C-alpha cells in the first residue's frame, strides 16, 4: 500500500493534525475521521432518540474501547510491516486463563488479569521468535500459531467457559464515571502509552524504521531481530489485554472470545491511517477508526437494522476506506508529492 500524505508532513506525528482546507481527499485521515465521526453522531442523534442517551453512550464507549484495543494489537504488528493473525486466539486464551485463575484458583482479580496479559505477551513473543529464527513470514507464522493456540486452549479447557467470576471483576466491566465506562479509561491509558512509544521512545523508532525499510534498518545498526521480537510480544500483550477486557464486559470468560477478531483488528488501524506496509502509524487514528466503526454499528442497531448486516457494513467500510486511501495516494502523486 502506498503512503498517501502530502509531502512535507511528518508521519510519526501520530497526534498532530494538519489543518488543510477543502476536500476530504486532501485532509489528513485523522481529521477526516474525526469529522465523519462528528457528522455521524449528529445524524444518529437526530434520527434515533436513544443514541445520545447516557446508557447508550456508556455501551458505545465501552464497545469503542474494546474494538480499539483489538485494533491496537494489530496496529503494533502492522507498524513493523508485519501482521498478527493470532490476535483473536491470544485474546481468547488470555480470557480463559484469567477466568480460570479467578474462578478455579481463586487468584485475586488484579494479579490474575496481569498474568493473563503476560501470557498474551508470551504468546506474542513466541510468534516473534518463530518469525525471526525461521525466516517464515509473519502471515504464515501467525496464521498457523493462531490455530495452535486455539487448539491448545480447547484441548486443555475442553471448551469450558468460566461464568462465575469474582464480583469485583464483573463490576469493573459495568462500572462507569459519568457515562464513561472504566474500560475506556484503561484503553485510553494504553493509547497514551502507545503514542509516547511511537513518538518518543527508541523502541518505537526502531519499530517504525523496521517497517519502513528493514534493510536500511539493519544498515543503520538497528537490532532488527530484537525489535521484531519485542514488537510481536507487545502485540500479544495488547491482544491479551483485549481478551481480559472482553471477559469483563461479558462478565464471563468464554472460549468464543476472539473468534472473529481478525477483520476488526485490521479495520481500526487501516481506517485510522496506519499503513499496511509498515513505517507509518497513527494511534489516535486507530482510536478514531474504532470510534467510527462502533458508532455505525451502534447506530444501526438502534435503528433496528438487523445485527447480521453489521458484518456486511464493516466489510464495506474497510473497502471504502482503502479505496479512498488509494485515491488519496494517486492525487498526492499527481501533485508531484511523493517521488520514488
Amino acid at each position, binding site marked *: 500500500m502506498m503512503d498517501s500524505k502530502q509531502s512535507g508532513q511528518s508521519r510519526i506525528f501520530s497526534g498532530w493534525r494538519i489543518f488543510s482546507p477543502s476536500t476530504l481527499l486532501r485532509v489528513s485521515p485523522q481529521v477526516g475521521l474525526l469529522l465523519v465521526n462528528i457528522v455521524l453522531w449528529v445524524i444518529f442523534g437526530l434520527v434515533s432518540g436513544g443514541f445520545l442517551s447516557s446508557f447508550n453512550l456508556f455501551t458505545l464507549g465501552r464497545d469503542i474501547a474494546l474494538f480499539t484495543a483489538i485494533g491496537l494489537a494489530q496496529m503494533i504488528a502492522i507498524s513493523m510491516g508485519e501482521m498478527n493473525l493470532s490476535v483473536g486466539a491470544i485474546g481468547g486464551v488470555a480470557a480463559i486463563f484469567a477466568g480460570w485463575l479467578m474462578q478455579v484458583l481463586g487468584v485475586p482479580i488484579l494479579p490474575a488479569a496481569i498474568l493473563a496479559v503476560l501470557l498474551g505477551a508470551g504468546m506474542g513473543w513466541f510468534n516473534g521468535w518463530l518469525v525471526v529464527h*525461521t525466516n517464515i513470514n509473519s502471515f504464515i507464522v501467525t496464521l*498457523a500459531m493462531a490455530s495452535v493456540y486455539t487448539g491448545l486452549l480447547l484441548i486443555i479447557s475442553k471448551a469450558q467457559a468460566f461464568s462465575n467470576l469474582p464480583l469485583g471483576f464483573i463490576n469493573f466491566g459495568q462500572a462507569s464515571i459519568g457515562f464513561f465506562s472504566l474500560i475506556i479509561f484503561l484503553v485510553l491509558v494504553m493509547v497514551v502509552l502507545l503514542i509516547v512509544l511511537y513518538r518518543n521512545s527508541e523502541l518505537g523508532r526502531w519499530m517504525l524504521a523496521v517497517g519502513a525499510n528493514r534493510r536500511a534498518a539493519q544498515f543503520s545498526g538497528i537490532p532488527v531481530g530484537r525489535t521484531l521480537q519485542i514488537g510481536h510480544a507487545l502485540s500479544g500483550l495488547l491482544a491479551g489485554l483485549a481478551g481480559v477486557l472482553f471477559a469483563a464486559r461479558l462478565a464471563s470468560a468464554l472460549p468464543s472470545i476472539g473468534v472473529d477478531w*481478525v477483520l476488526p483488528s485490521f479495520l481500526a488501524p487501516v481506517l485510522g491511517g496506519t499503513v499496511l506496509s509498515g513505517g507509518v502509524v497513527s494511534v489516535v487514528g486507530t482510536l478514531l477508526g474504532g470510534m467510527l466503526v462502533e458508532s455505525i454499528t451502534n447506530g444501526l442497531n438502534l435503528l433496528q437494522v*438487523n445485527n447480521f448486516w453489521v458484518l456486511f457494513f464493516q466489510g464495506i467500510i474497510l473497502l471504502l476506506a482503502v479505496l479512498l486511501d488509494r485515491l488519496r495516494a494517486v492525487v498526492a502523486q499527481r501533485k508531484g508529492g511523493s517521488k520514488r
Partner: protein
Amino acid sequence: MKLRLFLRMRSVARVDWLALLVLIIVGALGLSLWQSRFDSSYNMYVLLRSISVVIIVGFAQMVVLAVGELNLSVGALGGFVAVVLGMMLEVWHLPLPLAILLALATGLLAGLLNGLLIAWSGINGFIITLATSSAFTGMSLGLTQSIPFYQLPASFTQFGESAFGPLPYVLFVTLLVSLLLAGLLGKTVLGRQLLAVGGNRAAAELSGISLKRSLVWVHSISGLLVAVAAILGTAQLGSAQPSIGADWVLTSFAVPIIGGTALLGGSVSVIGTFLAAMVIALMNNGLILIQADPYWVQFLLGILILGSVGLGQVRVAWRDWWRKRGKEEKKSYV
C-alpha cells in the same frame, strides 16, 4: 539408470509429494494395524467423503497462491453460496439443476468481483478479500437470520450420501475437478500464463501477459471452486448452513502449503494438494478413531503448516550448502 532417475526426481517440488505419499502409506498402515475399525468400509467412506470438499477448498486457494496472491474470502463465500443455494431450493423452489448452475454462477461472480476490485484498485488482495469476506458473511447471516435451510430436494442430499462401495459419489466430482484443474494449469495457454505471472511477474508482463487479467481470472476460478465445494458440502450435510465455510480459511492455506505450493507463486502442485488433503483427513480420522478431542485437529494443523514451510526452507538451505560443497564455480540460475 535408476539412480539418475531418482536424482532427477530430487528437485525441490517433486520431493514434496513423494514424502507425503510415504506419510500417507505409513499413516494408513499404522492406523489399520492399530485401530481395527480403520479398515471398515464405512470408515473408508467417511474418510473419503471428508477429503472431497477439503481438496476443492484447497484448490480454490491454490490457484490464487499460484500468482502470488491470497484469497481470505474462501470461507465466507462458501457460506454465502450455500445460503444462496438453500434459498433457491427451499424458498424459490427452483429446479435442482438450475439452482446448482446459479450457485456456481454466484461463486464465479463473487470471485470476479474480488478480482476486479484487486486489479482495478491495485490494493493488496489481502485487504480486499478480508473486506469482501466480511461482506459475504454478513450477507449470508442476514439472509438466513442464522437459520439454515433444511428443505433440500432428496435427490440432492442422497447424492451427497451415496457411495459406490466405499467411494462416495462426491469423490468422483472432486476427482473430475482435480483433473480439469490439473489440465487447465498444466496444459492450457491460460493456465501457463497464470503460472508464468506467479513465477516471474516482470518476465510475464514483458511477454505480454497482463497482470490485471490474470488476477481477475484466478479470483474468478477461485470463486467458482469455492462454489463447487459449497455445493458438495451442502449435499453432504443435508442442509444449507451459512457456517459451512467456518474453518475453510485455515484449511485452504494448509492444504496447498503442505502440498508444496510455493507461497510466493509460480509453483503449484495439484497432486501435492490432493495428498496433503489426504494427510489431513487421515489425521482427522485417526483422531476420531482413538476418540481424542476433536480440538486436536486445529492444533495439529497449525503445527503441520509450520512444519512443512520450515521443512521447505531447510531443504532449500541444505540444497544450497550441498551445491556449495560440490561444485564451486558453477552458479545456478535459481
